[in-house]
């Protein structure tokens, strides 16, 4: 009798429980809300001018100003105007999140520059999530006067990566060619500058054309084509010293040099064999030259896949320029990669190897397009009339390229999703053939 009472008591409890849950869950549970669109605009954030503790009226460098310019330039963030800042905290305890919520910024950066001894500085900063009222990131670094700019870019990189998950490229460099009328002559220059255009340095100058710069993977050298002496030659120049080697000056074309991923070889275009324009591979240490294509058509503009195993290049063997791929060894067969449109040339490979950027003819305009090398699917990114020379940023998120603005050659960039377009401040004269450096090795 005891057991039976117990069992029925438990049973009743369970049963009621189940019924209860069923009813309550249909009545309670979760309400489903669907969001179908948002507003597409850059994320608002505030970068408060860093406080200064040291000799002199102000810091030797406006760290917050550079961070603001970097993040704003990326197109993803909208830094708050300094004039709208009601308070300018530099210590976490002075931050009142409610104040920043009112002015509708989502993220806040504050910081301090402290002079430890002359020309030695400590920079401290914090990044806050205003809506959550929490610190996301805090960092301290020591630096010198000449390194302040570079380290400010490092801070921009850290903040950018924290908020987007993408590695920042604010500390990288670009190389490009300028052409300017000076007196009776055209002057060609090869320039290296920071990615934002600052610290521009002349690497080479000539009254004859300069073309096709290419970075070595360690960022220390540039290969390029020069027409000095009325013929084309390929040079490799060490940036720090300015010393250069002439690595190819064969009869005919010496062009389109590109470093291999391990930095030991160049792939380049030669026409030494009876004027046939073909692709060769040159070992920079042994000087061994290996021919990779053998075709009457124009084969040029070769570039390495990131694994160093194969080459993408332009060939018009099918009648007009298209992109092909060939394994990086003699006697291998080339396979066609692009099938959309009648003109696809000048391939460049994304750092992950999953996309090509090409010059693609789109209804009479030459534009930058992304191509999936496996499927040939093509997506047009830029919208100019004669866009050319695409180059991936080392984080794979941006492409820099050359375009025309009012008849002048200028540089522009586009994000790989095609949403953010930026024009880069151009210098006097024509600017072209931009190429993005690898991540700095230091």
């Amino acid at each position: 009798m005891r057991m039976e009472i117990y069992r029925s008591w438990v049973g009743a409890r369970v049963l009621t429980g189940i019924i209860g849950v069923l009813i309550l869950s249909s009545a309670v549970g979760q309400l489903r809300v669907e969001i179908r669109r948002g507003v597409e605009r850059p994320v608002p954030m505030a970068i408060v001018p860093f406080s200064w503790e040291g000799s002199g009226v102000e810091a030797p460098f406006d760290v917050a100003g550079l961070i603001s310019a970097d993040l704003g330039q990326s197109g993803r963030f909208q830094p708050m105007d300094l004039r709208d800042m009601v308070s300018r905290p530099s210590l976490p305890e002075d931050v009142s999140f409610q104040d920043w919520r009112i002015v509708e910024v989502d993220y806040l950066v504050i910081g301090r520059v402290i002079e430890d001894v002359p020309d030695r500085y400590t920079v401290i900063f914090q990044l806050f999530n205003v809506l959550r009222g929490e610190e996301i990131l805090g960092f301290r670094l020591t630096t010198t006067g000449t390194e302040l700019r570079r380290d400010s870019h490092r801070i921009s990189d850290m903040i950018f990566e924290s908020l987007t998950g993408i590695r920042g490229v604010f500390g990288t460099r670009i190389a490009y060619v300028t052409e300017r009328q000076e007196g009776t002559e055209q002057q060609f220059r090869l320039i290296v500058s920071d990615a934002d255009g600052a610290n521009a340095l002349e690497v080479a100058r000539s009254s004859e054309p300069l073309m096709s710069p290419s970075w070595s993977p360690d960022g220390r050298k540039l290969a390029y084509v020069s027409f000095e002496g009325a013929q084309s030659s390929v040079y490799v120049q060490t940036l720090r010293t300015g010393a250069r080697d002439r690595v190819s000056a064969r009869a005919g074309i010496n062009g389109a040099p590109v470093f291999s991923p391990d930095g030991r070889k160049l792939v380049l275009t030669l026409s030494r064999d009876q004027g046939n324009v073909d692709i060769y591979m040159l070992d920079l240490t042994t000087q061994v030259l290996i021919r990779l294509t053998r075709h009457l058509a124009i084969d040029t503009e070769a570039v390495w896949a990131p694994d160093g195993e194969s080459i993408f290049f332009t060939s018009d063997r099918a009648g007009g320029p298209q992109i092909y791929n060939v394994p990086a060894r003699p006697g291998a067969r080339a396979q066609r990669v692009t099938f959309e449109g009648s003109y696809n040339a000048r391939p460049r490979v994304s750092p992950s190897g999953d996309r090509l950027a090409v010059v693609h003819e789109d209804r009479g305009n030459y534009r930058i397009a992304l191509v999936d090398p496996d499927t040939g699917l093509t997506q047009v990114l830029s919208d100019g009339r004669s866009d050319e020379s695409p180059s991936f940023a080392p984080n794979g998120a941006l492409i820099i390229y050359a375009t025309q603005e009012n008849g002048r050659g200028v540089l522009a960039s586009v994000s790989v999703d095609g949403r953010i377009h930026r024009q880069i401040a151009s210098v006097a004269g024509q600017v072209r053939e931009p190429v993005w450096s690898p991540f700095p090795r230091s």
Partner: protein
Amino acid sequence: MGLFLQQHRFAALLSTAFHVVLAVALTVGLNPSGGRRAALPIEQMALEATVVDESLIQRELERLEQLDQAEVLRQQQAERQAREQAEAARRQLEEEQQRLEAARQERNEEARQEQLRLSELQRQRDEAERARIEEEARLERLRQEEEQRLAREREAEAERQRQEAAAARQRAEMEAELQLALALEDERRQAEEAGLLDEYIRLIENRIQQNWISPVSSHVGLECVVNVTQIPSGDVVDVRVGRCNGDEAVVRSIEAAVLRSSPLPRPPISSLFERNLEVVFNPEG
């Protein structure tokens, strides 16, 4: 003790008989070496003595024949007298000893019997005592077991009653909750029919939509869920991003969208208030 003997009559009888037999056996039986010597007849001794004398005398005669016969006879006489005296004394001593010995043994025997009897009585008394104690203990045990059993039964009964009471209470509570839920359900259903729930959802959707700064990496096919907990004032107290196929920028943007929308709009009627929201970000092209 009397009760004990009465109750164990047969055993007592047997015991006594055994002891009597034992006493008799002890009295009649065992008799150590001293007694046996006393039982030898005189004649035998004299015979022995004579035999010994004759041989001695012979020897002596023979010897004395070699020596002076008178001396020998005199000596023989003297020796004989001495011997006889010694003999008589010895005999007397032996008899005395025997007598003493017998008396002593008799006394010992009596004492022993008395001892036996006493110890037997003692033993019987002890045994009776022991048996009594055992019996008492056994009865005590039985009593205690009985008590415990009763106590357990009482307790089980009490427990059963408690549980029944609790079950009854539980049922009453569930009943009440059910009633409340049903009442709310009714109200809610009516409200739904009036389209008010839809309106509530639209209000929330519009608020969050206005506040969502969608990043460049947001794309058609994006589907991200944010689980939101709010309190009746509309204040958001918990935001948790669940499954999401967007990148870091997207995750941060949807979290920010919800936080920026706090406090959320109140429902048109309060019974529509919902604590838990599942906000699905699913931009269309």
